[in-house]
């Protein structure tokens, strides 16, 4: 098909400002198997502007980004155009697109762990983009990497996640491209690192380079974006200046997102408002508004007519047939019935850790992950364990549930059923080749429950987390993210444990899903009277679920106390840092 020899059209050196960095027109992208990733997207990114592309998982953010870069898999069926500095990146031949990428585009991808070539020194990798080692060093320096001279000789696995992402960014901005597509560049990083990276993006802003900043976290978008584009079901729901959109959303979905997000003001002790129902199935899109099924304002006409993006003000446009009727008072998700009263705290302990020490590696490679740590969790209470990445949270957790043996110290769990763990990546905690039913019957069988009772018990528990029986016949891969999270939860509480440990259960989820999971946790812990040990680096979440907070740093608890007090008046630097790092949503810019 395409050959490198094909003559490439001359590309004007300095594109006149009139030509936008990116101009997407009526872009449709369908994958084999009928997955309609994008269904008619129009979008323009002006020079030097930063556009935040938000939307829940599966809404088409990444695909749109790839389209802009001309990196769509060849099997994707494309109509419409996506012009990068005037060059159509979905229509033009590969060689032309490559040229365009080289001259006009850069990219930062979600996972810095896998996005760098593990067998090539980073200096070389950057130089590939920048042309020379000198320029590479310079770029690394700009990307805020200390001592680049030394770093260039290192391999990716010798760098921390944050540094790797900086390397990616350095590559992206090489040759000051017209457009940089950053696909969830901070999602894989912990709060503190995330805020550093966000700062970097702000510093890198200049008149010539525009950014498409993909994220599912409005707060993150707010940190960097001039304009926000909300995607839903492969279509643009709303476009507008960041502040306006966040202050006065005009699309019910945007409003719902804002509302579902937990922050300073989301009230403790009662459930978060959530979006009902499931995200749309991109293989069978509704012929009406994709959001109608979950929209509290939905009406007859919503389900029939496909809403088009209409300009409502010079700076804003929205795609909702009822925008006029709803007007200003879009909001109000219907709040679900509140939780049962929390059981009285007893002084009895669900978990008692004393002088726990754990180290990994031997000899020179030895590093202490947890160092003489004490930790108590009272029955029925919830303790949030916060701290920056690598401080030892997961390790502590694993010892609490008995997956690791401490080198030193004692772990005692209260009377009752053994503790359970909810994993960060729920999907990965389900054995891929086993049916959910089998997975859930396993603990019952091991607990010696007679065969006939098991089936019923599984059904009940699935119902408890709001899943239909039929899920039992599916395998993990066949479920949606939300469903997997619930299954993981259900599995953990099949035999209600005295202690439920959660390792960052929401950090990988987008807003609406996070809310659902948090609600579930809150309700279950109360209904089943479980104590919880809740690991997170999201203080918002910590504040929402926990009665007490324990702040970890360098393998020890540096501060602990009642949640409110700790957050209100942190006495430890580590805590302050964490607080400062939280993308501050409500505070004015």
């Amino acid at each position, binding site marked *: 098909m395409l050959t490198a020899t094909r003559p490439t059209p001359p590309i004007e050196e300095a594109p006149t400002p009139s030509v936008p960095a990116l101009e997407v027109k009526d872009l449709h992208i369908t*994958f*084999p*198997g009928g*997955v309609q990733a994008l269904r008619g997207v129009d979008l323009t990114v002006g020079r030097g502007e930063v556009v935040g592309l938000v939307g829940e998982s*599966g809404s088409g953010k990444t695909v749109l980004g790839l389209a802009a870069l001309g990196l769509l898999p060849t*099997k994707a069926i494309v109509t419409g155009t996506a012009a990068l500095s005037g060059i159509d990146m979905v229509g033009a031949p590969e060689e032309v697109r490559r040229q365009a990428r080289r001259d006009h585009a850069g990219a930062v991808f979600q996972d810095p762990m896998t996005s760098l070539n593990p067998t090539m020194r980073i200096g070389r990798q950057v130089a590939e983009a920048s042309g020379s080692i000198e320029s590479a060093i310079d770029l690394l320096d700009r990307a805020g990497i200390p001592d680049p001279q030394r770093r260039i000789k290192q391999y990716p696995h010798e760098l921390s996640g944050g540094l790797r992402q900086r390397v990616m960014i350095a590559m992206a901005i090489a040759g000051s491209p017209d457009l940089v597509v950053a696909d969830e560049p901070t999602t894989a990083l912990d709060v503190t690192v995330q805020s550093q990276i966000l700062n970097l993006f702000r510093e890198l802003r200049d008149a010539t380079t525009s950014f498409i900043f993909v994220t599912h976290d409005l707060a993150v978008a707010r940190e960097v974006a001039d304009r926000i584009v909300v995607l839903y079901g492969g279509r643009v729901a709303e476009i507008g200046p960041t502040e306006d959109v966040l202050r006065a959303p005009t699309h019910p979905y945007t409003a719902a997102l804002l509302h579902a997000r937990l922050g300073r003001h989301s009230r403790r002790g009662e459930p978060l408002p959530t979006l009902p129902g*499931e*995200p749309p*199935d*991109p*293989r069978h899109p509704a012929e009406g508004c994709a959001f109608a099924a979950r929209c509290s304002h939905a009406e007859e006409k919503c389900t029939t007519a496909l809403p088009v993006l209409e300009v409502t003000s010079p700076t804003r446009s929205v795609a909702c047939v009822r925008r006029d009727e709803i007007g200003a008072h879009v909001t109000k998700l219907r709040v679900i019935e509140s939780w049962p009263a929390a059981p009285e705290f007893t002084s009895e302990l669900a978990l008692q850790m004393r002088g726990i020490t754990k180290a990994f590696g031997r000899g020179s490679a030895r590093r202490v992950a947890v160092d003489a740590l004490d930790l108590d969790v009272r029955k029925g209470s919830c303790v949030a364990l916060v701290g920056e990445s690598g401080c030892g949270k997961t390790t502590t957790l*694993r010892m609490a*549930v008995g*997956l690791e043996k401490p080198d030193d110290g004692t772990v005692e769990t209260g009377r009752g059923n*053994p503790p*359970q*763990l909810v*994993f*960060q*990546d729920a999907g*990965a*905690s*389900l*054995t*891929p*080749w*086993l049916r959910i039913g*089998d*997975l859930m019957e*396993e*603990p019952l069988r*091991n*607990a010696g429950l007679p065969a006939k009772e098991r089936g019923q018990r599984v059904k009940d528990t699935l119902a408890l987390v709001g899943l*239909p*029986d*039929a*899920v039992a016949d*599916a395998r993990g*891969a*066949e*479920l*949606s*993210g939300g*469903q*997997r999270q619930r299954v*993981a939860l259900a*599995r*953990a509480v099949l035999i209600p444990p005295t202690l439920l440990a959660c390792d960052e259960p929401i950090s990988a989820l987008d807003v609406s899903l996070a809310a659902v999971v948090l609600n579930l946790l809150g309700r279950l812990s109360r209904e089943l009277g479980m104590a919880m040990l809740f690991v997170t680096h999201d203080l918002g979440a910590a504040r929402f679920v926990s009665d007490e907070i324990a702040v970890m740093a360098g393998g020890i608890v540096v501060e602990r106390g009642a949640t409110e007090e700790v957050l209100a008046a942190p006495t430890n630097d580590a805590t302050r840092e964490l607080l400062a790092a939280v993308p501050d949503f409500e505070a004015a810019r």
Partner: protein
Amino acid sequence: MAVADPIVFGAVADRPARVRRGMRMGVWELGGIVVLVLISLIAIFAPLLAPHSTTQPIAVGPFAAPGHGSLLGTDDLGRDILSRTLYGIRSTWLSALAVVGSGIIIGSIIGTVAAMAGGFIDTVLMRTTDLFLALPGPVLAIVAVVALGPSLPHTLLAVGVVWWPWYARIVRGEVRALLARPHVDAARLAGASNFSLARRHLLPGAFPAVLVTGSLDIGNLVLTLSGLSFLGLGAPPPTPELGAMTANGLTYLFGQPWVALVPACAVFVLAFAANLAGDGVRDLLDAV
């Protein structure tokens, strides 16, 4: 039904991907698999299919060209080559399966134990494996057969001894990778015993890799075994074995080529089909 939609949904992210890759098996590979099935049938039903005895001469006498009284001709002793080839395919094919099978079983056990036990046991087991891996199989086979006398079991023993370590390594690698996966911890928390952990949560994950290697190995084995038999290291005469038949027939290559070529071609077909099928299986399972 009501719940159909949500369950179907998530499939989007993963299922199409897998199916898509799976579909990449070409017609040739498919053909290979088909032929392989046929061969297996032949192997099983050889006794019924063979028109004549494999040891006694038939009426037409020695060196009868194909077609003249017997479909594929007769050999130096007037035996029906077709019948002998059918039996030869049977023994070669079944032997190959036997070696791979035993390799997979032994290898899986040792590999899993090593990976799960870790530490000292792991080291010991793996060093032993390496040791066996380092034994020059052919020499071992030659020595063993010359010493214990030529017989299929001896050859298979000699080959099997050097074949399993390969699988032990693979399985260990896969299992260790799986052990790092959260679903294993989850299973532990669900109170799974080490055994059920291995059986339900680990081995099935290692299986694709093993199956791929195994299916690709069979071609190798067919050639290796017939090679040994060619060197006179297989079953003793008059047992029909493709390698030995060829070796014997090569003596008459220029005058009566069919005596050598028929069994040799059988080896070729066997190996080619196995190789194609192996690639097919690989394409199917590799991506998963």
